[in-house]
């Protein structure tokens, strides 16, 4: 059942009504997400090129990663997206406190993802798999496997920065939601949700191409 916009409901000029304002906000957010696709697209293109150049080296590099930990992290991020979608839903229904609760849950899961990521990076460090900084015996003799790890750290590093920024955005959104007059007609939480889901989508592609190459 669609939520009817009331006659006389205020929408800021130049918008004709709240529905159009909402649509414009969503479309604009997607324009920003398109630029993010371009950003990550460059990293994926580099991956594509170098994996095509030496698929065996990429398989060897991938086997050195902790796939079970990566799987857990993927599940954590997917669940955080569910929490985010539930937060947006609660807000749209005007339920402020449940929305804030789900936002907090999303942030907690996002932080859990980052903690697990830091753990796995530390593990790779102690095994001498970090290129340039710590090119120990593990990578020095295998330049193409080292190349895999260059791509791995750039991709997961860039992604982790986005998750961190997302957690910050969740905090700001939560603070604003706590004070807004009418949560049911407040767009920003949905836009934060779009960003969070996008960060999840990036990881959905990163996980198999980094961890499951055989």
């Amino acid at each position: 059942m669609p939520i009817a916009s009331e006659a006389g409901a205020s929408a800021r000029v130049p918008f004709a009504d709240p529905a159009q304002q909402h649509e414009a906000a969503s479309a604009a957010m997607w324009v920003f997400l398109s630029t993010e696709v371009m950003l990550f697209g460059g990293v994926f293109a580099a991956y594509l090129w170098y994996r095509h150049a030496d698929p065996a080296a990429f398989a060897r590099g991938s086997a050195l990663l902790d796939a079970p930990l990566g799987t857990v992290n993927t599940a954590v991020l997917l669940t955080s997206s569910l929490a985010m979608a539930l937060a947006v839903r609660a807000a749209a229904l005007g339920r402020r406190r449940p929305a804030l609760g789900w936002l907090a849950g999303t942030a907690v899961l996002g932080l859990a993802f980052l903690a697990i990521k830091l753990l796995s990076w530390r593990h790779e460090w102690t095994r001498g798999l970090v290129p340039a900084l710590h090119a120990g015996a593990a990578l020095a003799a295998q330049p193409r496997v080292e190349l895999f790890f260059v791509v791995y750290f750039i991709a997961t590093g860039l992604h982790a920065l986005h998750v961190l920024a997302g957690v910050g955005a969740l905090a700001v959104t939560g603070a604003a939601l706590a004070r807004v007059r009418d949560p049911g007609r407040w767009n920003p939480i949905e836009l934060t949700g779009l960003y969070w889901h996008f960060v999840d989508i990036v990881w959905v592609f990163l996980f198999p191409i980094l961890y499951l190459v055989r």
Partner: protein
Amino acid sequence: MGVPVPDPVSRPLTRPAPPAVATLVGAWLALLALLALTVTLAHVPLGAWNAALALAIAIAKALLIVLVFMHVRHASRLTQVFSALGFVWLMVLFSLLMSDALTRTPLSPWP
């Protein structure tokens, strides 16, 4: 308002209704199932099919997130087009990139 507002191409007159909890939880369970599937298949040696299947599963998961979590399924046509544009550009990037990589042949040495 005094200023005639042009009729937009196609937009709902009202905001789309929020999705049902069952829909969201269902999508989440499907995503977890696809995750289990992709991890399981990684241990099955299928040659070139491993990469193709992993990519197909990732695309399926991304579609679930875009259509259900990001609510693009019930968004206006304008929003749907905007949501697809970035990925269309990505396909252009990959096509042109790989058209180079896949057609490189070693040059014969000078006589």
